[in-house]
């Protein structure tokens, strides 16, 4: 991956990481969007979409409830989309598995980094408490702008470091990969599907008629798979 690739992808990671919480929370940071955009940026939107859909299955388990800690999918999905699209030179076995593992790890690190930015925001707010209590307009607006800027920088740094570290690691892993492509892909899809199905149960099991609604959907989905 070239330095220019890393530069542009990091900027995209910063913008999409910012969307997770700070601005504008329009879900541009969801994996199915972010990984597709990242894939498109490096010239392969279809690969980006494939890894984005896989990560989306994991992401339905992690919803951004209030002050809870959750993974940061924006920059992680940018890394996922780029790694999958760029690692396509004859490494079919293990390509999706290593990409998804890298993206999940970065989502975890990204979530941790969001907590650090929130702590930084708290420190800034504490230091300017008196000014806010006096109703100082510049302080109130300044805190907001500083928090947004810090989150943008956070996303850029997480994406840049993630790409710089994980792209060569992935290449090393794929060069000595020893299991078959179908098994490797089944492993990652199995994990994603299980997490997603568990999340569906957790979210909707209290909805009246859940089992029937869900089973009708499964039957329709399987029918399409078999018939088409």
């Amino acid at each position, binding site marked *: 991956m070239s330095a220019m690739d890393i530069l542009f992808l990091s900027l995209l990671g910063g913008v999409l990481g910012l969307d997770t919480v700070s601005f504008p929370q329009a*879900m541009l940071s969801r994996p199915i*969007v972010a990984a597709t955009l990242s894939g498109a940026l490096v010239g392969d939107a279809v690969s980006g979409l494939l890894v984005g*859909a896989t990560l989306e299955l994991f992401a339905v388990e992690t919803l951004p409830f209030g*002050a809870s800690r959750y993974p940061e999918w924006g920059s992680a999905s940018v890394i996922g989309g780029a790694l999958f699209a760029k690692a396509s030179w004859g490494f079919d076995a293990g390509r999706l598995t290593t990409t998804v593992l890298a993206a999940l790890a970065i989502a975890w690190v990204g979530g941790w980094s969001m907590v650090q930015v929130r702590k930084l925001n708290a420190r800034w707010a504490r230091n300017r408490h008196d000014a806010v209590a006096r109703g100082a307009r510049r302080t109130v607006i300044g805190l907001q702008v500083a928090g947004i800027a810090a989150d943008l920088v956070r996303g850029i740094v997480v994406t840049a470091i993630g790409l710089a570290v994980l792209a060569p690691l992935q290449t090393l892993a794929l060069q000595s990969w020893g299991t078959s492509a179908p098994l490797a*892909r089944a492993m990652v899809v199995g994990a994603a599907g299980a997490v997603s199905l568990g999340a569906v149960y957790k979210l909707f099991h209290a909805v*009246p008629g859940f089992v029937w609604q869900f089973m009708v959907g499964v039957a329709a989905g399987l029918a399409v798979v078999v018939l088409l």
Partner: protein
Amino acid sequence: MTARPPGRSPELSLGTRVSMFIRLLAVQGAWNYETLVGNGIGFCVEPALRQLPGGLDGDAYRSALARESQYFNAHPYLTSVAVGALARAELEGEAPERIERFRTALCGPLGALGDRLVWATFLPLCSFTALVVFGLGGSPFVTVITFLGLYNAGHLALRVWGLQVGWRRGLGVAQSLGNPWLQHASPRLGRFAAALAGMALPLAVDRIIGAGQVLWGGTLVGVLLGAILLASLHGRAEGWKISIGVLTAFVLYSVIR
């Protein structure tokens, strides 16, 4: 800015409303573990407060901005309800104690309603819709536009509605939150989302794993067993974190063997 003449109902110009709406998109910009979204509320209400007597340099403006920038917690999209209502209360000259009590009372309902309606229902519904489109062979453009179009139609409509109803009702906005449509939307959408989820899973798995793969059946059994295991953990562990461990072990095995 001029002071509002006594006895007249306050009005917001289109420019002020637009400014408040755009700021609402950044309401969580300074989110922190002490005041939560409090500074964001002050930031969003600020354009309206300029109409207070004395304008930007007046005591009324400074007192109101200080009051509105204190601790607050709510679902980010429904902070629009609070921002509209608080702007009206401040411009109508409500007593500070009354405004503070109202702010405190509003946190719980706006948080619970938003979490249930948006995070736990509408967002998964949009995700599964996009996964169905993907599973049916949708192109990157169609899949992404389907997700973003559907989600943001609801997202932006909720923010616009919140700001309008908050401004219209002021301190009486709680009645609007009891609207039957809002209260029943979550279970109704939930039923639809459950069906979409059921449809999305086999379709998405099929497209990701690739048609005709011999491990299709084995993957589905793995999905079922894994989901049962996760459900039996009752939230004591998160599936995506367990997956990191499982996939790390598999990658190490694949590289070393």
